[in-house]
């Protein structure tokens, strides 16, 4: 009788533990996103994401940064500071490691401990085991990783499609705004497409469902 009770409590404990882990997995908090970007792509703490455009990466960085989090950028010597500031990245809370060289992975891992979002441009192919080790660290610290370039087992892959610049002609005007489609691919599911202005005429991100006034070349 006593043994049966003991095994039952053990069983209940085991199930409780499993439930907790499951919940943990689903209840990972979302990072703050720019209002214009939130509809297209949202980042979860502990996830890794791959993107293919610097501007989109900066826009993703801007959300948590605006909300008061620290952000880090590894391996981007060509980080456009002014563009980042225009999108709302708070420079005082941004840590840059432009040339990490061979130690990019160690630097990224160290920065995962302190920043809510780490943007990294891996110098070459990233192995599955490397990504796995970093993923465990990300989950533990509740940080997200955005990779400018392929990343194995990324939670989502974000691509820019059909970019179209407005305000520029042939020898006239200037770049003012860009309309594009963001394709978010999660696993094997078909991609989700959202039309966006990135940057919009006021250097922000805006959904492109409604028309945005672009001043004609004057």
């Amino acid at each position, binding site marked *: 009788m006593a043994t049966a009770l003991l095994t039952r409590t053990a069983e209940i404990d085991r199930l409780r533990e499993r439930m907790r882990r499951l919940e943990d997995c689903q209840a990972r908090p979302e990072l703050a996103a720019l209002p214009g970007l939130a509809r297209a792509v949202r980042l979860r703490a502990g996830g890794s994401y791959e993107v293919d455009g610097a501007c989109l990466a*900066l826009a993703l960085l801007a959300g948590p940064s605006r909300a008061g989090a*620290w952000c880090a950028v590894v391996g981007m010597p060509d980080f456009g500071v002014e563009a980042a500031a*225009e999108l709302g990245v708070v420079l005082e809370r941004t840590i*840059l490691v432009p040339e990490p*060289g061979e130690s990019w992975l160690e630097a990224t891992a160290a920065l995962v401990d302190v920043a809510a979002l780490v943007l990294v441009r891996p110098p070459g192919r990233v192995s599955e085991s490397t990504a796995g080790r970093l993923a465990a660290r990300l989950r533990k610290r509740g940080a997200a990783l955005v990779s400018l370039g392929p990343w194995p087992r990324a939670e989502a892959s974000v691509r820019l499609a059909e970019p179209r610049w407005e305000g*520029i002609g042939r020898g006239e005007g200037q*770049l003012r705004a860009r309309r594009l489609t963001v394709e978010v691919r999660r696993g094997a599911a078909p991609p989700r497409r959202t039309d966006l202005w990135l940057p919009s005429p006021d250097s922000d991100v805006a959904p492109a469902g409604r028309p945005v006034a672009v001043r004609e070349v004057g």
Partner: protein
Amino acid sequence: MRTLVVWCPDWPVVAALAERDLPGHLPAAVFAANLVQACNGAAREFGVRRGMRRRDAQARCAELLVLDQVPEREARAFERVLAALEELRPGVAPLRPGLAALRSPGRFYGGEPEAGAVIAECVVGLGIRDVRIGVADELFTAEQAARLAPLQETCVVPPGESGMFLRTLPVEVLDEADGSGTVSLLRRLGLTTLGDLAQLPTGSVGARFGSRAAWVHRVLHGGGARPLSTRTPPPELVGQVDFEPPLESAEAVCFSARRTAERFVAGLAERQLVCTELLVGVEADGALASERRWLHPRWFTAADVIDRLHWQLVGSLRVGDIRAAVTRVRFTPETVVPEADHADGLWGGTDARVERGIARVQGMLGHEAVVAPVLQGGRSPADRQAMVPWGERPAGLRPRELPWPGSIPPPAPARVFPAPWAAGVLDAAGRPVAVLDRGSMTGEPARFRPGAAEGWQPVAAWAGPWPVDERWWEGGRRLVRFQMVGVDGRAWLVTFDGSAWVTEAAYD
């Protein structure tokens, strides 16, 4: 109490030249906000003066070395002089970088001129040629005497003769950097020498010309001596540990250095000091193998000191700086501040956890590898940003408020290449496009290649040419900028610099 003043003229320039290992006879000037803050004798011979605009100064002396003002550097460089003076006589009062006062050693060296000679010799021994010394009853007179002394000489004002000495000096000696306008006011009132000022009634001087003039007025009448606020010489705070036998692994060194680190921090704490900048030196086989300077946004605890030592050892062992077993570790406090300055603010400062993580990366890659992005003014995207090593204060940033004609209108490019890419632009006939002097182009861009890694592609849209004259007064280049969009929808900032095309930035 007799006071001796040691004056190193043009200290900002001397310090800046010494830091760059440049000889002192070159004409040089230190600028802040585009105005000459200090210049050396060679520059003065060309007619360069304090307060002159940079362009005017360079017009008078084309080869003038332009140096940025870095107050920390000036103070740091003067620290060496103060330490040397303290060896001769304790109780040195630093007045500002380049100027220090001490109680006159008097008869110890056989008289004041002799004491001055000993001190001048000591300062010249540090490699500072231009030093002048003044001795008088009190500080103001001694400083004026030092300013009148010839190179490496001493000017002594005998006891009780301060008033006589000062009366002949022009009122310009009251000129302070604060721009209070006292001198100009005195001039306009027809008072040209301090003697004229001395004849005014005491009460009116204080009321009309401010406290400084009032103090000088008292000095002129034989009063106004103020005690020197001398500094306490920095105590021996260096922590050092020797290993016998020498240790091979970083862990063993850190373990053995733990006690020393605790004593080092405790030694500072006893004097109510904390260390914010630490120099860690590691000797291997009797020779200094690795030395690195660490900054801390708060202050170093014993654990922090050991952390830094560990990172430095691991980094140096990997690079190969340390080849033999470690025989000695030394902690030198480079900057110490009173503990009270660092009492935790009500809302806290930088997150300590963040700084710890950053310091770890600095330990791996070096201090300069982690940078903070900052914005500044400029014409090209690369000029409009700067990367400041984490923990350092940005210096010499260009103001953003100025209009900066020729800068590119927003949106700003998301990628700014530190070194521009070599680009190519062809017209419809396949000939390279060039921009002529007056801004006309040899053809309309039809195909372009932003960089060697990118392929050629047709131009979908382009804007420009936007000419920029960069530093034309220095024979700089005339640049013409274009924004180009390829058929793939990606946009680039492409520049023609008179002979070739380069890509400066991308709107990815």
